[in-house]
């Protein structure tokens, strides 16, 4: 026979002013199984909790109902109190008579009546409660960082600093990401390479960090604390352990007409290449699409000149499998493709470039050795037009609906650097709004206007027309002067919108994390949990979560590292015991639950069953991994045969609650 205790809280006047708490306690005292029913001013207070604990001991209670505020507030408080009195914490139920009753009603009679019904419902449920025990799941003390840009590097360094092993998986032959391609950084104008490359070296020299360059994540299994990840190491046809990075092969390689992606295709590299001088790891990679030896079997020059004997034309893709406790996603961004923007003549005219291309054109390690020259005829440009918001803030299928956030600042930077270095150059910036929230950001933009005399024009460029004399006609509107302008320009720079890397979407599927419609990873809470994904153990770092500049990226990278460290510090994690489980005898193997599970907690297994006629039969049945299940209950609703049930919220408990309300 159940012995249930009911405790009705006044919550000062929060509840007692609208609900007759004495009447509620009195009415619930007559419910079947209830042996004690009390009211008290503040049930959550120390003495209120004592009341509950003493009742559990003296009355030998088998279940407790607290009529109080939302379980979000104090369910944990009362569960702990029950546990300290020797009662399983999952035998405590909360009837929410504050948020769902006293706060939303005015009439005392109806509010009291409703409070009694809510209490009765909780009593009906607690009759069917069973003791639940939290499972412990071990934590593998190793983290995986996906993406080796500044976000991934910072996260890895911070995790390693805390004493945990970290692996970085980077799909390019070197880490460094977009920041390695940038010339200067705003608003301080310090050299990007000078502050990034020491970090790259630090990452490569750190004993706790393993860099898997030219590699991709092929498969992810498991759950928080215990992920199993398969990493594909793409064949680079060079033995990483032997290559010294001397670069002789890249000099001698006869195939030199390969578009250099590090310089945005503005110059060429050889078929065997090291992306840039400070690459980490500094190891050559053969591009199989251009290598004569790999394509036709005739050449082999690199192999002949390599004194280390590192060239291996027979190298294959290899796979490694590794266990991780936490995964940090740092897949970054790319500028969008501008093929659809015919009006800006990006594909017709080599002197119309994107901002990232301009970074390379101005960089000392770029195609012109740091002198800004027009790509078409290598002459100095004297009039340069910048166009902002190309593809950002667009409501059509060509662009992106969001503000790319970084363009206003880097355009001001470009304009300023050009005016500084080439004072005879006129610089025009067409803007819709200049957005400069950030420390020292607006001052920076004002400097471009006031000190460097950059012409900021409120309006948009409508049409860019390359002319036969090599100049470019830029037709634009000046909204403040209310006129249409024609500028005879030498170069046009387009501030292209940024978008998440294309590899992010398939990765999100592997990680069972959520993305928004723009393929940015969704954080667990937009304000209060900004670096965690909704999937336990997966953290977000940098621009994969939304457009960000370098300081914000680094801040988020360290925050993600802190969250990952918090997880890795634990030897084991306590799992929520309110998880789904399937009745294997009722399960018909339909896979409905597997399809609706947002966490990938359900798998199907073939299991042997003894049949009534003493034969055995192999049946396909659902199996829930309790460490992955978050207890959302989607599977219990989807299951057509009623085999899926959620501990703590079982179908029978919910029906008992409904019956109690309808009584």
């Amino acid at each position, binding site marked *: 026979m159940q012995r249930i205790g009911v405790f009705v809280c006044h919550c000062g006047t929060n509840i007692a002013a609208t609900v007759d708490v004495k009447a509620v306690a009195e009415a619930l005292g007559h419910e079947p199984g209830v042996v004690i029913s009390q009211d008290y001013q503040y049930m959550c207070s120390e003495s209120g909790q004592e009341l509950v604990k003493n009742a559990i001991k003296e009355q030998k209670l088998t279940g407790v109902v607290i009529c109080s505020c939302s379980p979000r507030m104090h369910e944990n408080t009362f569960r702990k109190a029950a546990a300290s009195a020797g009662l399983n914490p999952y035998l405590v139920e909360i009837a929410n008579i504050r948020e769902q009753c006293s706060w939303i009603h005015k009439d005392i009679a109806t509010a009291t009546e409703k409070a009694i019904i809510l209490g009765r419902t909780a009593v009906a449920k607690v009759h069917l409660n069973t003791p639940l025990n939290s499972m412990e799941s071990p934590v593998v003390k190793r983290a995986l960082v996906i993406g080796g840009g500044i976000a991934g590097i910072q996260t890895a360094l911070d995790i390693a600093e805390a004493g945990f092993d970290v692996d970085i998986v980077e799909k390019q032959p070197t880490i460094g990401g977009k920041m390695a391609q940038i010339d200067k950084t705003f608003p301080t104008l310090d050299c990007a390479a000078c502050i990034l490359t020491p970090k790259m070296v630090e990452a490569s020299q750190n004993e706790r960090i393993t860099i898997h360059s030219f590699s991709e994540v092929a498969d992810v299994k498991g759950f928080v604390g215990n992920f199993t990840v398969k990493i594909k190491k793409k064949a680079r046809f060079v033995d990483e352990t032997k290559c010294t990075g001397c670069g002789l092969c890249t000099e001698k390689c006869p195939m030199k007409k390969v578009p250099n992606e590090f310089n945005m295709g503005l110059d060429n590299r050889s078929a065997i290449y090291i992306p840039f001088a400070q690459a980490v790891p500094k190891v050559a990679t053969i591009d199989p699409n251009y290598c004569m030896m790999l394509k036709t079997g005739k050449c082999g020059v690199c192999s002949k000149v390599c004194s280390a004997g590192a060239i291996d034309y027979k190298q294959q893709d290899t796979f490694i499998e590794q266990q991780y406790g936490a995964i940090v996603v740092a897949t970054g961004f790319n500028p969008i493709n501008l093929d659809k923007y015919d009006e800006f003549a990006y594909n017709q005219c080599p002197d119309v470039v994107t901002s990232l291309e301009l970074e390379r054109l101005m960089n000392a390690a770029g195609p012109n050795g740091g002198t800004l020259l027009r790509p078409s005829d290598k002459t100095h440009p004297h009039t340069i037009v910048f166009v902002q918001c190309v593809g950002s*803030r667009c409501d*059509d299928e060509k662009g992106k609906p969001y503000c790319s956030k970084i363009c206003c600042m880097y355009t001001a930077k470009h304009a300023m650097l050009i005016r500084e270095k080439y004072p005879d150059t006129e610089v025009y910036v067409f803007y819709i709004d200049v957005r400069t929230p950030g420390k020292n950001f607006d001052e920076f933009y004002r400097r471009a206007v006031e000190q460097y005399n950059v012409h900021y024009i409120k*309006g*948009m*460029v409508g049409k860019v027309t390359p002319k036969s004399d090599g100049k470019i006609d830029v*037709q634009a*509107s000046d*909204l403040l002067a209310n006129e*249409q302008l024609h500028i005879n320009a030498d170069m046009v720079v387009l501030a292209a919108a940024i978008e998440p890397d294309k590899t992010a979407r398939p990765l999100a599927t592997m990680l069972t994390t959520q993305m928004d419609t723009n393929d940015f990873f969704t954080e667990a809470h937009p304000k209060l949990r900004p670096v965690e994904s909704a999937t336990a153990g997966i953290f977000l770092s940098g621009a994969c979560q939304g457009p960000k500049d370098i300081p914000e990226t680094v801040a988020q990278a360290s925050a993600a590292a802190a969250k990952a460290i918090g997880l890795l510090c634990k030897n084991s994690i306590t799992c929520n015991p309110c998880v789904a489980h399937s009745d294997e005898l009722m399960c018909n193997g339909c896979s409905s639950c597997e399809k609706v599970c947002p966490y990938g907690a359900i798998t199907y297994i073939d299991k042997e069953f003894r049949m009534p006629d003493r034969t055995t039969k192999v049946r396909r049945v659902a199996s829930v991994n309790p460490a992955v299940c978050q207890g959302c209950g989607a599977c219990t609703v989807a299951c057509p045969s009623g085999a899926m049930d959620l501990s703590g919220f079982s179908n029978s408990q919910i029906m008992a609650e409904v019956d109690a309300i309808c009584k």
Partner: protein
Amino acid sequence: MNKNLKEQVLRSSGVNVLKCMRCGKCSATCPSYDEMEYHPHQFVYMVEKGDIETLMKSESIYKCLTCFACVERCPRGVEPAKVVEAVRLAAVRQQGGNHLEPTDIPALLDEDLPQQAIVTAMRKYAK
């Protein structure tokens, strides 16, 4: 501000002028900009303010070529040419109805021309 007129222009154009972010790309792209007293971006803004009678009196409504460059280029999908057309239609209606019987239109349709351009041309030049 004439509320009924604004309502009529918004309804007949089918344009949500509130989507405009004031970038001015419509006016930047307009080939008859210099001919117009009020420019495409001003049409959108003045319709939003309800200042439609000023536009109806301006010759600008007959200078729009209905080339749809502004519609094509607008990053927000506002379709300024349709606003200009709607103001033009309001002016035409005020002057005593269409010059063309609707039944005559099908025979004049040409697949290569935007339908709106033909109707506009007929309104301007028929009779």
